């Protein structure tokens, strides 16, 4: 009896192993594996368009679209790291431009892309601020394909027109506008903080506005201490802004809060430019946009592609990166993704009205990296920053928040 059991067990074992071997073997050939977390909607369509551009130039290469969905890329990054450390890298993978590259230990796992930057003349078509953001330890590690903007103030055109107001260019104007709306029982600024990160997003834009681009960047590199009086001012300013937001912000996600604006109940809203796509999906066009009050700064985040060491199809992968950097590639990808090209020479007529204005700003305004979206600091720091600002949005305790932000900076810069 048990002998039979044992033999059944052995057969099952052998079968299992051979299946696994077949699965691992895969077909060798002329292929290209692209790893990303773009699985849905405009992102997936944009990626497909980019792949089509590649396919036209290299028709014999079989593209494998490897995606891992979920968690704004967190799942994908976890899987990717096991592949990199396990010596089975994809040919190219998605990477947020900026400090995110640090966690992949680039000198050990990635190839620098300086040659591609030189051969494609990329240092002439990307803005200088972006180029310095992309460099880590003196090398380029990623090719940026798109740019999103985080510090956009969206406003309800009808409410502003009805009350004979102009969208505020300075914070003084802002608080004048707020007074008018408050008297009319209109929510001056709508915000939703249910998920915990939105308060941090809005503060980031206030921080940039209050400090200016250089001081803001200095906070994340350790050049400016968080105990500086400028940070106190920024926190006080944010506190003043939060005094007149909708009282139910803790019950709403950002898009639910934005519904107040669509319903003509709220006048202003601060969020990244994916909001534009949200408005489009709601068939709403009564909105206007501008930079958050204060100096004009472009608070950007960017997706890029990186090349791992030991990529199985090196030549194909390098060609892919060249396509990603090319004008044709970026013009195919971005209108669908709802972002602007990192290149400054793309044809604006391919883009909608919002993106056209963003493209203009991209070439003219100073660029800073977004914190809450992972471009300015490592994720561990970002999470703590987000938690501090979530508490601040309720307690409005400037001194406590500043002390906590300072502690977080010390924890993360020391390493």
């Amino acid at each position: 009896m048990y002998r039979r059991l044992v033999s059944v067990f052995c057969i099952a074992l052998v079968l299992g192993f051979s299946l696994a071997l077949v699965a691992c073997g895969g077909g060798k050939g002329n292929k290209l594996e692209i790893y990303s977390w773009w699985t849905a909607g405009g992102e997936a369509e944009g990626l497909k368009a980019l792949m089509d551009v590649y396919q036209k130039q290299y028709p014999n290469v079989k593209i494998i679209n490897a995606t891992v969905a979920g968690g704004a890329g967190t799942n994908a990054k976890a899987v990717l790291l096991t592949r990199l450390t396990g010596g089975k890298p994809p040919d190219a993978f998605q990477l947020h431009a900026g400090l995110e590259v640090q966690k992949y230990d680039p000198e050990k796992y990635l190839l620098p892309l300086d040659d591609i930057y030189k051969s494609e003349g990329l240092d002439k078509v990307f803005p200088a601020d972006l180029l310095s953001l992309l460099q880590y330890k003196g090398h380029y590690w990623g090719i940026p394909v798109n740019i999103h903007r985080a510090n956009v103030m969206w406003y309800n055109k009808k409410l502003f027109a009805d009350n004979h107001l102009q969208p505020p260019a300075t914070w003084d104007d802002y608080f004048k506008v707020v007074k008018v709306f408050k008297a009319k029982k209109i929510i001056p600024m709508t915000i939703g903080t249910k998920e915990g990160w939105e308060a941090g997003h809005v503060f980031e834009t206030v921080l940039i506005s209050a400090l200016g681009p250089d001081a803001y960047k200095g906070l994340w590199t350790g050049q400016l201490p968080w105990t500086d009086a400028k940070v106190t001012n920024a926190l006080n300013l944010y506190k003043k802004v939060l005094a007149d937001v909708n009282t139910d912000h803790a019950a709403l996600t950002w898009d639910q809060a934005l519904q107040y604006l669509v319903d003509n109940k709220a006048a202003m809203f601060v969020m990244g430019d994916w909001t534009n796509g949200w408005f489009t999906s709601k068939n709403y066009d009564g909105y206007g946009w501008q930079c958050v009050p204060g100096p004009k700064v472009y608070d950007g985040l960017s997706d890029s592609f990186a090349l791992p060491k030991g990529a199985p199809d090196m030549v194909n992968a390098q060609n892919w990166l060249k396509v990603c950097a090319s004008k044709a590639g970026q013009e195919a990808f971005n209108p669908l993704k709802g972002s602007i090209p990192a290149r400054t020479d793309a044809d604006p007529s391919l883009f909608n009205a919002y993106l056209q204005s963003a493209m203009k700003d991209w070439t003219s305004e100073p660029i800073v990296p977004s914190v809450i979206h992972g471009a300015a600091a490592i994720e561990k720091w970002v999470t703590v920053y987000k938690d501090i600002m979530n508490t601040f949005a309720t307690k409005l305790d400037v001194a406590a928040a500043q002390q906590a932000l300072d502690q977080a900076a010390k924890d993360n810069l020391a390493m």
Partner: protein
Amino acid sequence: MPGRLFFQGGRMKGVTRDRVISLGLVAPSIILVAVFVYGFIGFTGFSSLTRWDSIEPNFAFVAFHNYQRLFSTLPTDRFLCDLRNTVTFTVFFLVGCIVLGFALAVLLDRHVKGEGIFRNIFLFPMAISYIVTGVVWRWMLSPGNAQTGSTGINLLFDKLGLGFLKWGWFTDANVVYIHPDSGFGHLLGSIGLGGLASPYVGISLAMISVVLAATWQMSGYTMAMYLAALRGIPKDMREAARVDGASELQVYLRVIVPMIRPVTLSAIIVLGHISLKIFDLVVSMTGPGPAFATDVPAYYMWDTTFRGNNFASGAAIATLLLLVVALLVIPYLVSTTRGEVHR
């Protein structure tokens, strides 16, 4: 009676076919449980003592640094808020479910007409996932705002002229606690219990909304447990008590409640470990809440691990969570195994 079989096997000494087969059949699950449950518990405990704070593992030993950080208020007091919320939630949830469940069971035990229908109605919420419960209760309890008017239940209160009952529900960040500067706070301080007068030892009001939703969902289940227990009490016991002159209240207090004590214990264990590990309800209903008024350790663990990539800190929270659940479950396991041996 597995005990006796084992005893016989022990006396027979030497390897028999039966024993090999039985061991062989159990071995895979023992190995799998050893690796995937206890092995990973051990690995989590080990990770919590390291400096693994990015995607790439870093096993530099930092002793209890991660734990120390969790219990400090800098840079955030999130974990202390979480502990407070968990205690608030567990106490109210247990009391609510057990009182309500017992009351419903007693009512149904009176052989009311249409008992089956009522039983199903009360039990039905348990069949729904916490995600659904959370979304629906969020819609109902969303407070609305001062500028554009109330929504949900607050709107209902307005329409019924009960506006004074309105409040922020799960957006109310207030915590009821003994202020260290109050008279009672000074009194506690003078007898060495000043630690109790702190905002981390208190009742988070926003948590009450979450308790409402969870109690709505789980009290039917408690009812079913109690109903089964009540049905298991022989009729003659109650009658004997009545013949002895006990009032109906006394029958319940002196006879029935003591007899169903084991069920109460089971209910406490089952509900208690649900409440300590609660995650999905909070995610879908409230999120971390204003100043972490509705945050729970499981949510923080997920957030810091998979958003912040701070695996060591997440592992420390997981370890603490396990210890707390163990405090609840182990005494129960010990008492039940002892009970079995006696039988």
